[in-house]
């Protein structure tokens, strides 16, 4: 049990750090998107620790590939707009 | 680029694909009963027919006893190399002076089949210290943490030869 709580704490710290990195406007947009992907990927492990494997699997399947791809795809299409 | 997989008959490739997928299905389910097999046959057949350009481990496998023996010895060599080079890399990383000598070298391969080439590149990438960067025709460009020899022949002998000897027998 203590193992799970320690893992949960570590993940929480990581998630918050990645979220702050994702919303800082001084970072480049690609880094923001990558950090948002990290937030969703680690949140999926957090879901697993909260005994919700269904939700964890959904978040892992969607957060790892699909969302990241959608963002990077639009970002690649609107190159030049990211510095506004 | 010559690829044997295109010359193999389509029916045979689909059959091999189907068998591999069924094997993976049984491994995923973890049990062999009638219902598992019925659903597995349906799913594997659907995927194999929908995606006929798929490759599997055994697509270009030469089903000879020699190839099986070479396969077993290949995996033995692969895991030995994996552990050995990981230890080497750990020693490099932990030593205070970081004694690396990186560079990208060019090596030659004789393999022609797609699966053989993929397995070769993956084996090179998985053993730490070497990382395939680009593959063009018979040339591989390999990033090497501690370059041993910069000329093509020497690097080939050091990086590729061990794996290639077995893969040539397995896949051709």
């Amino acid at each position, binding site marked *: 049990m203590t*193992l799970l709580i320690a893992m949960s704490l570590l993940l929480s710290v990581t998630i918050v750090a990645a979220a702050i990195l994702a919303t800082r406007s001084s970072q480049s947009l690609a880094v923001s998107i*990558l950090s948002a992907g*990290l937030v969703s*990927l680690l949140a999926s*492990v957090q879901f697993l620790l909260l005994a919700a494997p269904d939700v964890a699997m959904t978040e*892992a399947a969607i957060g790892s590939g699909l969302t990241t791809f959608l963002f990077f795809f639009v970002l690649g299409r609107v190159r030049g707009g990211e510095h506004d | 680029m010559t690829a044997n997989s295109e010359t193999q008959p389509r029916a045979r490739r689909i059959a091999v694909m189907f068998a591999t997928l069924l094997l993976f299905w049984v491994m995923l389910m973890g049990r062999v009963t009638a219902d598992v097999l019925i659903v597995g046959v349906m799913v594997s057949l659907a995927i194999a027919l929908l995606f006929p350009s798929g490759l599997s481990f055994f697509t270009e496998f030469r089903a000879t006893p020699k190839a099986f023996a070479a396969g077993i010895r290949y995996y033995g060599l692969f895991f030995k190399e994996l552990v050995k080079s990981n230890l080497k890399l750990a020693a490099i990383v932990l030593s205070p002076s970081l004694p690396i000598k990186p560079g990208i070298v060019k090596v030659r391969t004789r393999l022609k089949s797609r699966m053989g080439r993929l397995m070769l590149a993956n084996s090179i990438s998985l053993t730490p210290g070497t990382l395939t960067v680009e593959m063009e025709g018979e040339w591989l460009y390999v990033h090497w943490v501690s370059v041993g020899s910069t000329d093509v022949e020497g690097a080939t002998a050091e990086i590729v030869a061990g794996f290639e000897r077995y893969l040539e027998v397995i896949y051709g």
Partner: protein
Amino acid sequence: MVDLLIYLAATIAGVAFLLALWRFMAGPTAADRVIAFDSLTIVSITGIALAALAEGRGIYLDVALVYALLSFLGVIVVARYIERGF
């Protein structure tokens, strides 16, 4: 005895996780951050296996299966983005 070893392994893996996180935060180029991202997901697979062990539920491993097969997609997306492949 074995429990102690499990705790030790989890602690060491946690340190590795933090080191990879530092690289993710600091990484000078995009490639560095992507590598750190990849390492974080691979360490997470270890974490999932350890959590399954601690809870005693084999079904958690299905999530690790999805991780192992799909986490590389994110890396390939970013790699293709930085070489302008789509």
